[in-house]
């Protein structure tokens, strides 16, 4: 509750059953600064992204009386955040509102131009930038113009600063779990062993970010695992690495660390894997790591489409990888995206049919979001992509997939996936 310290609220609106790891990193990094740690109170608020949550969040803010607000912005929550920001600005006009995250970063200037409730938008990775902003707003240190990695409002104008290089040594960011910023909880504890992604999938915002992979040290991951897996109430947790089976060496090391820390038979759930690369050795490592379920593509089973969107796909290797994981009891969830350039209605039907032949535990269908900063967003014209410029940026049509076909593909796929997923264990 209110005290003499400067109060900062970090807010996210999460998909049901999820939590924000990103805000944990932001807070943990900020508290590294002794002055910030001593003179501020940083609270993380996670709301369900559902009806009524805006007024709930607004009520909390009127009670908490923050001096600074930071929003973690994703495609699914942006509309809610803007609604809340507009309301906050009316009753607390003096409180700076900072937005960061993959939804706002790539279009920072446009967001500031179109939404007067936002004061600062962070271009990319937020930890170091947010600490600089705290120092600026609360200690009067430096000018906003001097903070790399932001765009901000100055009067009627939007000022764009230079981008900031990402933190090279990820261990500079304290672990939110080891520092007590986040409390491990069953099912909503997220660990990370590296940032970045080796792939360049056209629809994924990771593809538009840093090409270089950056790793947390194994010592730090080991400590986090010991904390999480040493708690018998944590029955399962997640790794949010873009590709859990990045390479055999990393996977082998990681799985041994997990195995060594696993005192209570804790399960590792819903990790992302590159299935074409799954072989017998990979499966042994996944079993060693206690992996219970994985999420993977193929997104589409049409090789031509995969190539167009910058993905590698080998139907045979993919099928084999799925089978190998299933043989050891790992639940495989297969994802399909409707509306990719190169696909059409019948190709979408083919992808559903192909995926069903693999007998995955679940088939997850989604409509293409043309996310800012992704290759598809950047090259929209080349693909004839029409999409909603506002989040969630649903595709409307592309050069191979007209709207009426996308609409019918959604109806077909939703029905087919429901029929499939109704299966009893």
């Amino acid at each position, binding site marked *: 509750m209110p005290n003499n310290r400067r109060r900062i609220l970090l807010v996210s609106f999460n998909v049901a059953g999820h939590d924000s790891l990103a805000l944990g990193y932001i807070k943990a990094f900020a508290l590294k600064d002794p002055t910030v740690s001593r003179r501020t109170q940083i609270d993380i608020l996670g709301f369900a992204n559902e009806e009524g949550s805006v007024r709930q969040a607004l009520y909390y803010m009127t009670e908490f009386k923050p001096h600074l607000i930071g929003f973690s912005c994703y495609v699914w929550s942006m509309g809610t955040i803007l609604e809340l920001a507009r309301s906050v600005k009316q009753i607390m006009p003096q409180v700076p509102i900072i937005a960061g995250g993959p939804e706002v970063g790539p279009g920072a200037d446009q967001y500031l131009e179109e939404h007067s409730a936002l004061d600062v938008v962070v271009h990319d990775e937020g930890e170091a930038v947010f600490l600089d902003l705290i120092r600026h707003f609360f200690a009067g240190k430096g000018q906003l113009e001097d903070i790399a990695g932001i765009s901000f409002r100055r009067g009627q104008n939007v000022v764009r600063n230079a981008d900031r290089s990402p933190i090279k040594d990820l261990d500079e960011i304290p672990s939110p779990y080891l520092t007590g910023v986040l409390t491990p909880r069953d099912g909503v504890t997220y660990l990370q062993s590296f940032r970045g992604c080796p792939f360049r999938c056209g629809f994924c915002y990771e593809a538009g970010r840093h090409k270089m992979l950056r790793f947390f040290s194994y010592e730090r991951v080991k400590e986090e695992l010991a904390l999480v897996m040493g708690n018998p109430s944590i029955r399962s947790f997640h790794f949010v690495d873009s590709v859990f089976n990045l390479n055999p060496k990393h996977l082998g090391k990681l799985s041994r660390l997990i195995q060594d820390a696993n005192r209570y038979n804790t399960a590792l759930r819903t990790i992302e894997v590159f299935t074409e690369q799954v072989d017998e050795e990979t499966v042994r490592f996944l079993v060693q790591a206690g992996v219970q379920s994985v999420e993977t593509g193929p997104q589409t089973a049409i090789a031509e489409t995969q190539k167009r969107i910058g993905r590698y796909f080998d139907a045979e290797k993919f099928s084999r990888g799925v089978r190998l994981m299933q043989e050891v009891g790992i639940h495989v969830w297969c994802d399909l995206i409707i509306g990719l350039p190169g696909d059409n209605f*019948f190709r979408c039907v083919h992808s559903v049919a192909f995926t069903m032949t693999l007998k995955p535990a679940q088939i997850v269908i989604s409509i293409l979001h043309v996310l800012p900063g992704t290759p598809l967003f950047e090259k929209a014209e080349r693909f004839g992509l029409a999409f909603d410029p506002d989040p969630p940026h649903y595709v409307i049509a592309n050069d191979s997939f007209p709207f009426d076909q996308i609409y019918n593909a959604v109806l077909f796929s939703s029905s087919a996936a429901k029929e499939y997923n109704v299966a009893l264990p």
Partner: protein
Amino acid sequence: MIVYQKVCLGPEDNDHCTVCPVRDKGKKMYDLAGLTHQVNALADPENVELCGGESRLDQDLFSLISHARGRGAKRIKLVTSGRWVANWDMLTGLTEAGCRLFEVKIYGSRPETHEAITGKRGSFDQTLQGLQNLSTLSGSGEYEGAIYMAARVGVTRANLEDIIPTIALLTSLGVDRIVLAQMGVDLPMKEAAQVVGNAMRVAALNRVWSVCEGFPPCLMKGSEMHVTELLWPEPSKVKKPKGCRGCTYVEICSGPPKGVAGQRAFRAVSSSPYVEDVRLLLRIGSPHAEQ
């Protein structure tokens, strides 16, 4: 696609349907032992379809479903007139036993049309009650998203004018899929195809997926996305009318149903942008294999 292994619950139909292919009053029902034997004989019992005469099995149906579950069935679909599921206790008993997929056969939006085909007075109310029960159960907290509810609309000469109102009724009940199946040899195919095409548009406008069965692609121009024979193609060597020669879809179209009215309506499709994609689907394998 999901291939269901069919288990026929009995040779008799529930009603007196004028278009039912399994109508045969002279034969006896199967008993539970015979049916469990059928289930045991399935090579891959993951997906099982129970069809025909379920209401005469009574409590044995629960036992059969439990048996199928024990044999590894993950999806058990009951094809029904809806009369069984019109009884709430029976419906919940079925779902608890492990039957979560239902396909309800309906022939009209009102008793006169439906019952003119089923031949049984009062059957429409029971079918509608069954659909309403499924809709209620599907939306209930306990079963939300865990019940799959399809409707099969037989399209005949007698109910053609009532097809679109029937689709409107079904979409209001929140079905997950509608199948419009060609039935009866006296159906005027060209006219019926137009009605079915419009009916599928009505379903799409109401965000419900629908397909037609037994209507060759040449009759369904503009609705190709809803033609079962294109979505689940299988090679066909059925002898086709002269007008079908050179048709783009000749490999996969099963042609007009034997003896159906309006054969002259069929015309070869000279080109289609979907041919290659349909052939690609063909390579995935036929879903029509039955045990």
